């Protein structure tokens, strides 16, 4: 497989990027044979670090429904010069800037806050900017998130995920606000600790993509949305009415009870949110609000 794909790639790239003068030089760099040869040849690349011997092999999923030659999904191999502290996102950025400008992926803050760059790296959902290249086995395979429609290359359609998130009213909604206009809405330290981890969600969609149940049940709220529901249902500053409303949302047919405690979401969460624990706690809250023996 890997022997055929680079050829395909170089044909396409030269056709597309004929206008760009440096394109052909770069092309044989990432399509060239064994890794050691690559190091010797790359004297022309401006961003090349001093130690050109040390490169890492990444295989990136490519797919573009709008271009005829790219409709068939394939993997492109790039040999990216390794620098200390390099992340998966750095590697794909390097590949895009130096080898193939058509390589498409989302990224923004590069510091695990924006949640744009969740990829399926070596068979696991990870945040590109938070995953060290040195921690991964070569060749590093980078794919778009599973169970979401691929728009192009590493970009997936997040609409469904956002719909699930919005279904749980992911905003603070107190019954009563303090009298003074500028007065703070205070929360006890203990309550803050309780919801602390759940507030860290960055909406990257890694958990939702890893969830086996969400993959088979389109209506299931999914771990991220349930975590959002937990964050506000457990907030003591919200009124009982709103909390009750939140519990009713999450205890529906496709709510908390679909969770089968596989812990895949907890395993992949880049912010280390104990998602399964929060879902389990919501289950207990749902039972407590329904079971009355008096």
């Amino acid at each position, binding site marked *: 497989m890997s022997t055929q794909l680079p050829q395909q790639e170089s044909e396409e790239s030269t056709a597309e990027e004929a206008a760009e003068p440096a394109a052909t030089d770069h092309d044989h760099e990432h399509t060239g044979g064994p890794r050691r040869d690559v190091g010797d040849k790359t004297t022309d690349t401006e961003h090349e670090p001093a130690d050109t011997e040390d490169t890492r092999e990444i295989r990136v*999923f490519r*797919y573009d429904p709008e271009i005829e030659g790219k409709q068939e*999904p394939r*993997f492109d191999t790039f040999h990216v010069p390794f620098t200390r502290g390099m992340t998966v996102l750095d590697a794909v950025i390097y590949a895009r800037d130096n080898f193939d400008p058509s390589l498409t992926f989302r990224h923004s803050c590069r510091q695990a806050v924006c949640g744009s760059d969740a990829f*399926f790296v*070596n*068979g*696991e959902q990870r945040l590109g900017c938070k995953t060290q290249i040195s921690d991964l086995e070569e060749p590093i*395979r980078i*794919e778009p998130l*599973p*169970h*979401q*429609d*691929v728009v192009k290359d590493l970009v997936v359609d997040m609409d*469904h995920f956002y719909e699930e998130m919005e279904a749980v009213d992911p905003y603070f909604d107190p019954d009563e606000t303090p009298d003074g206009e500028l007065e703070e809405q205070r929360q006890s330290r203990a309550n803050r600790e309780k919801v602390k981890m759940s507030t860290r969600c960055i909406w990257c969609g890694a958990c939702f993509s890893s969830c*086996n149940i969400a*993959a*088979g*049940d*389109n209506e299931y709220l999914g771990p991220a949305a349930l975590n959002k529901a937990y964050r506000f249902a457990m907030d003591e500053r919200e009124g009982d009415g709103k909390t009750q409303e939140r519990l009713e949302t999450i205890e529906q047919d496709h709510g908390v009870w679909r969770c*089968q*405690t*596989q*812990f*895949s979401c907890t*395993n992949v969460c880049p912010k280390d949110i*104990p998602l*399964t*624990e929060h879902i*389990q*706690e919501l*289950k*207990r809250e749902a039972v407590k609000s329904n079971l009355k023996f008096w």
Partner: protein
Amino acid sequence: MSQSYNRGTIESFSRWREFSAGMWAWIFHKFTGWVLVGYLFTHIAVLSTAIPAASADPSTLAASGDIYTQTIVTLEELLLVRILEVGLLAVAVFHILNGLRLLLVDLGIGLESQDKSFYASVMLTGAITVASVPTFLAGAL
């Protein structure tokens, strides 16, 4: 999304390779559950067809010549049945142990070590199954 873009065998293969403990526990629990349901109905079907023994006269019963006893004895003579019994024990033991694990998970106890408890239940199941082999296969080989 169930009708997500088909990425061929590559995705499904890597997903299986990267299965985590909780995922395997879930698959095994479903599988063993269905096996136990299947066994239960087979068990009822076989034994209820052998039940006419209840109306047999005491002398036949004393001589172990009734249908019920004969059915059991005939089944136990088959090596395949003995091997299936070992399998049934393994399935039941895993389902019990993982059921206890899920009980703890539902109560929110020890969620951080859920993978260890899965490995423990697998190993304990293996040990109990191996230890049971001499008992189940005695006289059949």
